[in-house]
């Protein structure tokens, strides 16, 4: 435990409804530069855990530290600045349908006030890495499911985030594209990005063995380093 803790959860619980817990008493430490799988059955709480990490949901109980900072009671005007250091691939993509692919991927950069030329270059680069630079001027609804998913990945990676949270990022992708995407994640990881990847795919975990966190009914039941 010499390395720095990137994400630290202390006794986290989350209930959407009073009768059932989506997450229960989670304690967890993820170090800087780690690559972690988050797995578990459908409805186990994977997405919920990720949502807590970028303040899309707030825990009912417990504390969350990101880079040593307690984000549990972050003021809402500070939330955007936290989010800028985190790239998120949403399970349902969350692309803006009235904006082009280019504008979608450029958005997180514009939010940070980056210069136009820089934005253009970075967006092109990110789209090229997911193989969709030719779709740049289309709208999300004009793309196939897998293409939309890759746009979501490009948007998460374009800012060079400290943390990458990817929720089922290859659910709609064939194996070849999945391998390419995993290469991208590993490259980002090698550059220092801490990666948390929620997935149900055992195949992926076997091909790229890393530390695996397993949720079951909201509880963290296993934490295996490979």
């Amino acid at each position, binding site marked *: 435990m010499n390395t720095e803790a990137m994400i630290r959860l202390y006794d986290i619980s989350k209930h959407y409804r009073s009768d059932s817990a989506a997450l229960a008493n989670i304690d967890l430490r993820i170090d800087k530069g780690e690559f972690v799988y988050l797995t578990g059955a459908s409805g186990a709480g994977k997405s919920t855990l990720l949502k807590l990490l970028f303040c899309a949901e707030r825990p009912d109980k417990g504390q969350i530290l990101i880079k040593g900072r307690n984000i549990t009671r972050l003021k809402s005007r500070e939330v955007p600045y936290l989010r800028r250091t985190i790239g998120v691939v949403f399970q349902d993509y*969350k692309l*803006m349908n009235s904006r082009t692919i280019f504008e979608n991927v450029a958005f997180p950069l514009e939010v940070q006030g980056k210069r136009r030329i820089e934005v253009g270059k970075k967006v092109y680069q990110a789209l090229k890495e997911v193989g969709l630079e030719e779709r740049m001027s289309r709208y999300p609804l004009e793309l196939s499911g897998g293409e939309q998913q890759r746009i979501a990945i490009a948007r998460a990676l374009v800012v060079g985030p400290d943390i990458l949270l990817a929720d089922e990022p290859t659910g709609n992708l064939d194996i070849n594209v999945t391998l390419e995407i995993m290469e991208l994640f590993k490259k980002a990881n090698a550059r220092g990005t801490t990666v948390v990847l929620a997935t149900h795919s055992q195949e992926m975990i076997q091909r790229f063995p890393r530390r695996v966190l397993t949720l079951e009914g909201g509880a963290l039941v296993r934490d295996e380093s490979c």
Partner: protein
Amino acid sequence: MRQSSFLCIATVGTLTATLTIIALFALVIINLQALTGRWSEDVQVRAYLEKPVRNAQADQLRKRLGSIDGVDEVEFVSREKAYSRMRQRLENADLLDGLSPEVLPVSFDISLASELRSREGVLELLPRIKAVLPNADLRYGQQWLERFESFVQMIYAAATVLGGFLLFATLFIVSNTIRLTLYARKDELEIMALVGATPFFIKAPFLLEGAAQGALGGGLSLGTVYLLYQAFFREGLGSLLFSIGGYEIHFLPASHQLAILGAGVLLGLFGSLSSLRKFVKIG
């Protein structure tokens, strides 16, 4: 923002429609005001004297009347003048055959300071005139003046209620429409917040858009009202109104035009602002 052209048209259209109603309303009220203002210039008091007076005495009375607060001008109407006036008024002068000037009463025509040219003003002034001419018979076209005034007042009161409600309804409808257009884009607003945009960054373009739409709506409504004015009010009414004494119906003055434009911008701005507060939530 390709898909939102319908939303944009909806907002601008609603702004235009509501502002046009307001502007048309203002147009009518302003012209009624100008017209009744002009007519009320005719309001005057005529004081019939109990018995004829000599010129010197008349002059003295005239001066005293003229110095009353609220009196504008005073004219002495001698018997001769009264006779010639009557002659003028009656088409068929034969009627006056049996009449000599001596039977007519003399009078003072007292015109009022502009702020008193109303029934109330007259009633305020009457005692002061009575003080100078205690025995005179004072007349001021009571019945018509009263009716006309109550008519005008009823219209103003109705206009106030209607106009007040109109403003309120406009505010409501426009902010409602803008809220609906933002509701239709609420997924997008949510996504922006999720990828790290500050509320200001999210809101600014929508506010600008709202202000621009408001200005556009204001401009279009002024255009619409101008067309309606040209088509219906100026010509059509001009020929309808046979005796408004050369009164020409005006278009809205520049200050009101600016006010309409300003109202459009403010409506667009605050309509967006209040709705954005509802839909832009971080964390």
